[in-house]
């Protein structure tokens, strides 16, 4: 296990370094003269040069790269060109929406998918099992924005139970913030649950047809015991992989749901800053997301080691 962890950690660090170079080159390479873009068409050459100098944009790329990375390592993500806000503060305030949204959505999705997928795998010949499989298909086909709008119409407009959109800060009104998140979380959870149901179903189907489940039955386990003690434990491997990928996709990928419910989350912030050519904001935020995604992958890899002795003990 220590060798396994060390290898995964080394890979993680190398991948983060490679990613940082790629992001830097992509964003700087595509941006043209950053200072000129920020100041707009009517800016004078002096103003452009002054801004470039102020942010060190006139230095060689290599120097700028190491300057950025060095500050990043100290927790300094840079400042917005326009508003001079600290990127770190921006990201933290946006994450206070995005993280609860993504985590609750994913948990809700799993709470739906694990029982539903398992049931439809075991009882595919029963009407309810077929219905679950059908609903999951429908859920995959429904776009998340449409689900969001429908929920918003029902619970927000018609019943008036929950806000149709908007955001109040956690510290200003805690329960108000929770209420703002309910509908987005349900929309996200339903859609995620639908696709995860498919994965759980196929993982359980696959595992329950394995010879070792038959052995478990032949030594006296009931179908339910074989499922709970042998089946789900083995099915957890492929499911962990998919969940890891879903988390990675979610953290920067909830732009549609944030837009439908007017939530100022991380995804919308990135989109707005790309449009505004806020190079340093985009660069640092994307870097953070990449580190986060790789961290999730690392955790999934380590979880694999815990779940599967064949991985843990492999040379």
């Amino acid at each position: 296990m220590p060798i396994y962890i060390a290898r995964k950690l080394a890979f993680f660090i190398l991948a983060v370094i490679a990613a940082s170079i790629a992001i830097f080159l992509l964003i700087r390479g595509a941006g043209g003269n950053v200072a000129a873009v920020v100041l707009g068409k009517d800016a004078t050459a002096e103003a452009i040069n002054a801004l470039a100098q102020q942010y060190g944009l006139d230095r060689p790329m290599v120097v700028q790269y190491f300057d950025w990375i060095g500050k990043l390592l100290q927790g300094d993500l840079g400042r917005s060109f326009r508003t001079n806000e600290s990127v770190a503060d921006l990201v933290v305030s946006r994450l206070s929406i995005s993280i609860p949204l993504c985590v609750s959505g994913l948990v809700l999705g799993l709470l739906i998918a694990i029982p539903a997928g398992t049931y439809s795998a075991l009882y595919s010949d029963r009407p309810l099992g077929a219905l679950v499989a059908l609903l999951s298909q429908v859920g995959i086909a429904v776009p998340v924005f449409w689900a969001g709008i429908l929920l918003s119409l029902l619970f927000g407009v018609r019943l008036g139970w929950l806000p149709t959109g908007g955001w109040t800060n956690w510290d200003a009104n805690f329960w108000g913030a929770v209420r703002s998140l309910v509908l987005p979380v349900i929309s996200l959870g339903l859609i995620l649950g639908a696709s995860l149901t498919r994965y759980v179903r196929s993982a359980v189907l696959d595992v329950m047809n394995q010879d070792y489940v038959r052995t478990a039955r032949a030594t006296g386990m009931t179908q339910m015991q074989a499922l709970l003690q042998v089946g789900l434990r083995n099915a957890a491997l492929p499911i962990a992989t998919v969940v890891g990928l879903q988390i990675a996709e979610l953290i920067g990928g909830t732009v549609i749901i944030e837009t439908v419910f007017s939530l100022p989350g991380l995804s919308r912030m990135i989109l707005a800053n790309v449009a505004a050519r806020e190079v340093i904001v985009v660069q640092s935020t994307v870097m953070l997301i990449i580190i986060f995604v790789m961290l999730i992958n690392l955790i999934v890899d380590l979880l694999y080691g815990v779940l599967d002795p064949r991985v843990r003990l492999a040379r």
Partner: protein
Amino acid sequence: MTAPAAIEVRDLHVVYDGLAAVRGLSFTVPAGGRMGLVGESGSGKSMTALALMGLLPPGWKAQGTILHDGVDLITQTDKALSARRGRTVSMVFQDPMSSLNPVRRVGDQIADVIRRHGGVGRHEAMGQTIDLMMQMNLPRPEQLARSYPHQISGGQKQRIMIAMALACYPQLIIADEPTTALDVTVQKQVLRLLSAATRERNSALLMITHDLPVIAAMCDTVAVMYAGRIVEYGPVRQVFRNPRHHYTRGLLDSQPTMDNIALDGSSRLTSIPGMVPPLPALPSGCAFHPRCPVATDICRARMPEIDAATGAACWHPVAASQPAVAS
């Protein structure tokens, strides 16, 4: 013969939506007895085994009577059967590579069976596991018990499987091709172990295989299956020395022996022409007639039953050879 049989099967049918994999099987394995069930792939051997265990694949149904330990297994609920599986009747499967749970230590897998049926604590179960592993001639059992299946050899895995099957001293062990997936050098050791361990526990053995020498070495009686029916049934010596069914004879003639393997390469090994018929297209009458050298009209028209005198289900049984010396 007052001791109840380990298992008594009467007119067993295994069907799926109009198809029949097993068609009217009857046999008895006495307590502590050893019966071999032979036949080509597709003859219904494995389906018979799974029917006895109550573990048929989804959609398949068993009909008839399976008497075991005073009850008819066919009428039992799955829950009642679960309480028996591994305790009064257990099974060793064909492929030990895939038959053990890959994420659980092998010692724990044996101990699980002991704890499930024996009602003993964790510590006691592990002690019994180590004893059992020692009886299975597994080297350094304490250390091996902590291994995962992927860390041990195929022969060791099958010994673990046998230990799991024997753990609760079952009345009957069904072994379905237990050595087919193993190296030839290991096969014999595993068979010897299975034979000795079942004898020690006085467990009856139902040995399913297409390997005739294995049956000859290990069993008292043999049932030859073809297309879901028993075509010949009797003591091993009698059936093998003097087969009365043309299918049994064909099987025996297809076995390489020192006599029919010519060293110069001009082999005289024979084979049975044709193939086992697929389930949806079973021939009329005697299912073997399309491949039989002596088939006549009656074979095509009517299905023969086992004849008490010959032990063969055949309209034109092979002539009895002269008994050499009456003992």
